[in-house]
């Protein structure tokens, strides 16, 4: 597919995205996303999961337009709390706290908020543009993938994700295993045999991944907040005035480079497995600090320290849609939830998605562009409004979140068992937080589990039971070699370090 064809499809995508109905859902997604980003204790993962039931009556395109809006909307909202109260609304805004809050303390909250919104918009738009030209050829290349290649790619994804999340690779890998095991509950995807259902009909459909997502990432987070001392449940919020919001020309000039670099870093991070927006913000901050003319300003309110990471997380969250739409394999929990939503709506993403559902793909891509524009408009003038939401004390907010989780979960299947799974996973999520286990590999494994198993068993059937097939196929071999590399890189690094330390001790 050439460039012109892509542009033509994109235009038709705008036709899909600008119907009044889809514009409305895009707006709803953007607003909910901003709220989710602003409210601590409710991240994009739980936010998307909770809103899935609201999309049941919609067609797949409108549903994904809205749910995707929540994801990138949260990136905009998250910066607000980081800058105003030094509390990241979600994990991708942690780096913004450092210089954003310092800027706010110096009375420059307005420019910080504005530059993060502008940076997010510019980076998001650039990432979408790259996606338009990159996704179709990638999908064509991915047509060469058989079950063997998909299996190796998924294994690679798990290992890389486990490697970059959390402190311990071993712990993250164990969580991935737990997720895969939970994913085997229910009917065997190949033969239809019931597994681990203990005779219960309600378990035949498997464990509802929405329940696990809300439990681990919604309730677990609320419980972690409950544990904090009561005094910390109240906080003072400084709401900036409307006319203080606009950045000076100098601010824009200072941050332009950081925004563009952030967009590039973010786009790259989104393409590889891992919690892309989080890693992208971290990488961007480090780059900005290293190449800055005045690195000593970082940590004391350098505007590049806000512009870079905020642009990076938005670009990353746009390009994270590429693996989902092109391969049908999400590389991180938020896109994994979107995969679940697509499956609920009867769309099975993979290399054929773009050609089979052009309206869905191009409509969603075009809506992202519109959504970014809506968010820019929404965030600049309405920041004081969103900041006021933070005045709701946490001791009122947390019970409300719980009530919402309970009702939202029930509405997915009208099923009591789901509520118990959610509560159980909530307790699990809380304990995992305490013991420094990561939830991301578990959730991703749960969603991808059935796909992984089908790919594994099909490969074995193709090869008549020989494992050599995984290394005989070149693409699969490359993924497996990379996997082995990622597994042993930390070990190697540790060995080298202890060796040099030993040598130093001898000397």
């Amino acid at each position, binding site marked *: 597919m050439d460039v012109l064809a892509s542009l033509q499809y994109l235009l038709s995508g705008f036709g899909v995205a600008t119907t009044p109905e889809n514009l409305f859902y895009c707006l709803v997604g953007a607003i909910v996303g901003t709220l989710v980003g602003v409210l601590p204790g409710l991240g994009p993962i739980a936010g998307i999961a909770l809103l899935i039931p609201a999309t049941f009556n919609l067609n797949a395109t409108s549903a994904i337009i809205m749910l995707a809006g929540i994801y990138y909307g949260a990136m905009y909202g998250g910066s607000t709390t980081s800058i105003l109260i030094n509390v990241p609304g979600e994990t991708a805004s942690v780096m913004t706290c450092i210089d954003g809050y310092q800027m706010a303390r110096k009375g420059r909250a307005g420019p910080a908020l504005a530059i993060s919104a502008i940076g997010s918009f510019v980076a998001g738009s650039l990432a979408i543009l790259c996606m338009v030209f990159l996704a179709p050829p990638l999908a064509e290349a991915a047509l060469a993938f058989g079950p063997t290649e998909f299996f190796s790619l998924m294994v690679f994804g798990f290992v890389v994700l486990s490697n970059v999340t959390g402190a311990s690779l071993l712990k993250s890998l164990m969580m991935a295993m737990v997720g895969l095991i939970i994913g*085997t509950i229910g009917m065997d995807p190949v033969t239809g045999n019931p597994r*681990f259902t203990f005779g219960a009909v309600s378990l035949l459909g498997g464990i509802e991944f929405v329940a696990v997502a809300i439990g681990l990432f919604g309730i677990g987070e609320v*419980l972690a907040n409950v544990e904090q001392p009561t005094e910390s449940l109240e906080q003072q919020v400084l709401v900036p005035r409307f006319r203080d919001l606009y950045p000076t020309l100098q601010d824009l000039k200072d941050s332009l480079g950081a925004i563009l670099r952030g967009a590039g870093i973010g786009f790259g991070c989104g393409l590889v497995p891992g919690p892309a927006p989080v890693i992208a913000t971290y990488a961007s901050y480090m780059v900005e600090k290293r190449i800055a003319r005045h690195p000593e300003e970082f940590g004391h309110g350098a505007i590049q320290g806000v512009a870079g990471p905020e642009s990076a997380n938005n670009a990353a969250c746009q390009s994270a849609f590429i693996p989902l739409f092109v391969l049908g394999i999400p590389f991180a929990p938020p896109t994994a939830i979107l995969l679940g939503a697509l499956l609920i709506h009867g769309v099975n993403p993979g290399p054929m998605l773009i050609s089979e559902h052009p309206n869905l793909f191009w409509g969603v891509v075009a809506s992202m562009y519109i959504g970014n524009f809506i968010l820019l408009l929404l965030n600049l003038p309405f920041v004081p409004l969103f900041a006021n939401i933070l005045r709701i004390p946490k001791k*009122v907010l947390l019970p*409300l979140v719980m009530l919402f989780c309970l009702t939202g979960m*029930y509405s997915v299947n009208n099923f009591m068992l789901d509520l118990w799974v959610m509560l159980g996973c909530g307790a699990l999520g809380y304990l995992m937080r305490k013991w420094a286990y990561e939830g991301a590999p578990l959730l991703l494994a749960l969603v991808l589990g059935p796909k992984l198993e089908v790919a594994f068993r099909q490969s074995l059937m193709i090869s008549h*039971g020989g494992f050599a097939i995984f290394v005989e196929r070149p693409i699969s071999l490359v993924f497996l070699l990379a996997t082995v590399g990622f597994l042993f890189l930390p070990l190697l690094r540790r060995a080298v370090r202890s060796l040099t330390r030993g040598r130093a001790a001898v000397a």
Partner: protein
Amino acid sequence: MAAGLALLLFGAVTAFLSLRLPIGTLRGPGSGLFPLALGLILIGLSVCHLVELHLTATTPPTDTEAHRDDGSAWRVLLFMGVMVLGTAFLTVLGFPLVAFLLMAGLLYILGVRRWQRVALIALCSAVASYVLFVRWLQIPLPKGWIGL
């Protein structure tokens, strides 16, 4: 340590239960093969983890955490307990009543102590969620004996 042991147990139970499923052969893998492999890998990983813990267990770093424990673990337990109770009585009492009681209980645990305030917030959120979910979004939440 406890988590490592729990994971070891989880892996063992998985492996054991999958042995009772048809394993099949590598040529024609049955339902039990994949979970069996997962269970065995999890056992292996958790053993590695336990060994690693054992080797590095000279200084337990959790000491400082335990000291600032000021009944906050109790608050989490109570909070969760109210959620469990609310879920257990959802079908019997019905959604609107449970929403009110649940909110009141959770607010009290988090330190909202003036009863007028607790009642007001709980009532408002129960009514609002009832209107939003049951009336507007038409979700068939349990009616219970109040029959709303």
